């Protein structure tokens, strides 16, 4: 047999290299986000118009520029330290939730007995509103950061655990069969097939959790604290400093968005295949 007959026939040449790296251009960004930016600016304009024209009192709805001014003036005195405190609570709480969520998902995936024992309880546990538990948790654990971490982690671990578990379960059984005939042990199948397959779901769960994290932190602070954005809002509300409340809300939103973006960045780095179009040929 000549080696030439093993060569690549013309019709087997590589498919056109799929867009390996998508270029980020200004044009693309505008095409993608332009419309939502326009809607945002329009809403902002309406808001500014209503507040400026004196249709509503300043303490009911301050104009956007007043919120920004408030943010600027209070940053050094109140908001900076409050933001830092809340950031620590939500970020560390989120990290705990990630570890806990993945840990629980792996445990439930590996042991049928544990899954039978814990899965229904896990689902049921979500019927208990963590927000209502917050004051009790603060009493039990204390006024310090640990009670906030527990609240954030309780709120965030569930979507991570459930999505990761779904990711493990969704693994194509054919892969597992093939792996068994290729010297694959249970552990190797987990590491080389199930874990990478579950990555996209894991990150979906983390994105949902990231949006919950600031809510958890603020509720923790509402229930008892002496610093943090939740505390600032609690103080400013009754004093009718609505601009300050809104400034705190703005900061929270920015942090939530940054956390979601950080998760997306991690996904792009560790699971770049997750968002490329699938070929079924």
């Amino acid at each position: 047999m000549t080696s030439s007959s093993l060569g690549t026939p013309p019709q087997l040449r590589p498919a056109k290299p799929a867009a390996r790296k998508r270029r980020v251009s200004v044009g693309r960004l505008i095409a993608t986000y332009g419309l939502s930016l326009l809607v945002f600016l329009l809403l902002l304009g309406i808001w500014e118009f209503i507040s400026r024209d004196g249709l509503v009192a300043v303490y009911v709805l301050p104009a956007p520029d007043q919120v920004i001014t408030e943010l600027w003036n209070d940053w050094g005195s109140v908001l900076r330290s409050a933001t830092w405190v809340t950031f620590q609570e939500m970020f560390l709480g989120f990290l705990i939730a990630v570890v806990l969520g993945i840990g629980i998902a792996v445990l439930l995936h590996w042991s049928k007995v544990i899954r039978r024992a814990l899965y229904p309880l896990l689902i049921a546990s979500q019927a208990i509103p963590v927000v209502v538990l917050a004051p009790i948790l603060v009493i039990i654990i204390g006024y310090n950061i640990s009670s906030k971490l527990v609240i954030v982690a309780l709120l965030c671990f569930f979507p991570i655990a459930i999505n990761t578990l779904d990711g493990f379960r969704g693994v194509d059984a054919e892969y597992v069969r093939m792996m068994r005939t290729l010297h694959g042990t249970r552990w190797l199948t987990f590491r080389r097939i199930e874990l990478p397959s579950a990555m996209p779901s894991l990150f979906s769960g983390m994105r949902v959790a990231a949006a919950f994290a600031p809510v958890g932190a603020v509720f923790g602070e509402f229930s008892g604290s002496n610093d943090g954005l939740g505390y600032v809002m609690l103080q400013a509300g009754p004093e009718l400093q609505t601009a300050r409340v809104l400034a705190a809300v703005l900061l929270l939103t920015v942090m939530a968005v940054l956390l979601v973006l950080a998760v997306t960045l991690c996904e792009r780095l560790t699971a770049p295949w997750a968002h490329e179009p699938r070929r079924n040929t």
Partner: protein
Amino acid sequence: MKYEMPSARNGRTSGGTCIAVRRVSRWFGDNHVLDELDLEVDLHGRLGIVGASGGGKSTLLSLICGLDEPDSGEVVVQGQSTAAGRLDCCALMPQRDLLMPWRLAIDNAGLALENKGVSRRKARERVAPLFERFGLAGADYLRPAELSGGMRQRVAFLRTLVSDKEVLLLDEPFGALDSITRASMQAWLSSALDAEPRTVVLVTHDVEEALLVCNEVVVMSARPGRVVDRITVSVPKRGSRREIVAEPEFVSLRERAMEALEA
């Protein structure tokens, strides 16, 4: 393209029995999938199995490679009759290529080596020359998404081959390819197996494919699956695919297989 039919050294007399399936039956609930099936494949023999879909062909492969156990009868592969023992000498290549998008082509092919504890670097060193030899030159460091269907299937076959197992079970390996690509892949597979002789069971719904690649073809009935006809392929082995397919002997074998399928 030159085409070489399975040569005589792969004939029945060569190296003793490698796979023996004896009076094997398998039920799934009330579904009688296999009925007292008997099969034998010699060492480095190539058995083609054709039959209607749902005829238990894939089930038979699962039984041979030890992913499943028969309800009655026995399956012996290289003297191993336990499921774990059979699993040690069989590698399965499914119809879908099942390449992992998170591994480069070369690392997909070297999967079995890495599973055995070989380092990724060593695995690549061993697999790289095979990419050259089997028409995948330059594709080593591409991701599966960048490969064409035929190339993906080649990588999947290499992955099965480098598992260093004697028995390769191919479950409709080219079923998802277009007919032009499939034709060249059949020639490719045939020559790849000449270069790296293994004991092969090829399940397919394509009679020509079975006759071109294998030296013995078994026709299976619809459920419950049993052997309807057993055809030894003895067609002159050289020439182009077009010439072989037009050979009177080939035509009569094809007619015979088609007839058995209709029965």
